[in-house]
């Protein structure tokens, strides 16, 4: 088989078999992805219903409800970064490409959620504290974490060689995760304003349900996005392989 320019390419290289198989399926490939998508939708619907029907808190009114999304977003972002650490160790010990794809996907989802945490925090802080930003311990360490993983994604974008990119990303991910406790401690010694960390046990039980619903919703959204991103990464890898093959064959055609 040849492509438009008459350069030989294997058909399997152009369309991997599993892409063919999943084509046209409404819920995308694989039962896991569909399951996470449906679960996320259900939990989000429940959380919305809860959020819209419960009475506003006495002091902050509807503003307080941002907490239901804010705190779980932070949890799932941390979980994603932990997955980057695990994927990094997994990659360095087995050199499995799927470990690299997991790390890349989890880092992207974690950075996205981390950015949302910062944005939600600002929306809440402006009317409550009167400022968009303050150099409080938890705000600052969340921002540093965001920057660390943003640089991880930049590194991935700048390294072309697949094997080297995977190896270096694993290393940078591991170091970044190692930095989390150090950043956290240093910033806490530096300055603290933020209220004590919110968990279902530190707050009124009436808040806990909203928090839990959203935590599960975001957990499933996170898992759904990671799986979807891994699928995109597999397609990207297939495209890179085709490009490599094309380049080689084009070279061969010219030589002939």
């Amino acid at each position, binding site marked *: 088989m040849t492509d438009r320019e008459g350069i030989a390419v294997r058909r399997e290289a152009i369309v991997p078999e599993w892409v063919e198989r999943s084509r046209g399926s409404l819920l995308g490939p694989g039962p896991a992805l569909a399951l996470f998508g449906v679960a996320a939708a259900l939990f989000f619907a429940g959380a919305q219903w809860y959020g819209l029907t419960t009475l506003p808190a006495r002091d902050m009114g509807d503003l307080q409800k941002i907490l239901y999304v804010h705190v779980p977003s932070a949890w799932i972002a941390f979980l994603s970064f932990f997955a980057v650490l695990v994927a990094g160790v997994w990659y*360095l010990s087995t050199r499995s490409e799927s470990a690299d794809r997991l790390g890349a996907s989890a880092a992207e989802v974690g950075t996205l959620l981390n950015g949302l945490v910062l944005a939600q925090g600002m929306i809440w802080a402006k009317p409550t504290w009167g400022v968009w930003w303050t150099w409080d311990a938890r705000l*600052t360490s969340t921002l*540093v974490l965001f*920057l*660390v993983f*943003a*640089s991880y994604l*930049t*590194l991935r974008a*700048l*390294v072309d*060689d697949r*094997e*080297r990119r995977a*190896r*270096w990303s*694993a*290393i*940078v991910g*591991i*170091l*970044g995760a*190692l*930095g989390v406790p*150090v*950043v956290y*401690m*240093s*910033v806490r*010694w*530096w300055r603290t304003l933020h209220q004590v960390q919110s968990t279902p046990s530190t707050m009124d039980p009436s808040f806990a349900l909203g928090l839990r619903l959203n935590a599960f919703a975001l957990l499933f959204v996170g898992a759904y996005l990671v799986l979807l991103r891994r699928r995109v990464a597999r397609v990207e890898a297939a495209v890179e392989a085709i490009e490599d093959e094309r380049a080689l064959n084009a070279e061969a055609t010219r030589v002939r």
Partner: protein
Amino acid sequence: MRAPPSGVVGPLASAPRAERRVGESTRVLALAWKDVLVEARTRANFGAVVAFAALMLVLFGFALGPDQEALTQAAAGVLWITVIFSSVLAFGRAYQFELEDGALDVLLLYPGDRRSLFLGKFLGALAFVLAVEAAVVPMAGVLYRLPILGALGRLVPILALGTVGVVALGTFYAGMASRVRAREVLLPLLLFPMLAPLVIAAVKGTHVALVGDPVAAQVNWLGLLAGFDAIFLAAAYLLFGAVLED
């Protein structure tokens, strides 16, 4: 073809040519000595970095001064940002001259642990940055009127521990960034977020040493710096083999 700048020099140069086992520590010292020697013989780089640091101190003076109180309060922060920015120039260069003429490939062909290469690069860059500091700190003392001599006993441990952390991570990330397009951007992008705890601890510690700060003095900044150094030196040493695999 020019001879690559690497090779057996310094402590090993006088050794007899006969077969002998070379310990890792000898290897590390030889590598560090090579880098120091390259710097000492070209010298232009050191001068340029010190001049860059001096310029930064002057520009910060314009940005913050001439109010003496403001300058004194900001001095510790200015000093560390100057040191970190200047040392980034040094880290990139430490690999740059290895990449010219394929010297790095030759270095990698030498027997022994790749991680020795990290320690050698680390020690070489540490010597360079400490030398830059030896020039920059007195300059900052004069320009910002800081009691450097009186505070020397408290200042030196903070400077030393802070520099070890900056150089450990800087040498490590430069091993990657120097071999990537857009390396001038990538190195600070990778390095600076990781240095956040170090900047906090080093600046606060320096501020306490120079000016005194009853609140900040309650915290063991030296301990935090030592912990940072221990964690990242160990992690960088263990992971460096994977940086240079190809």
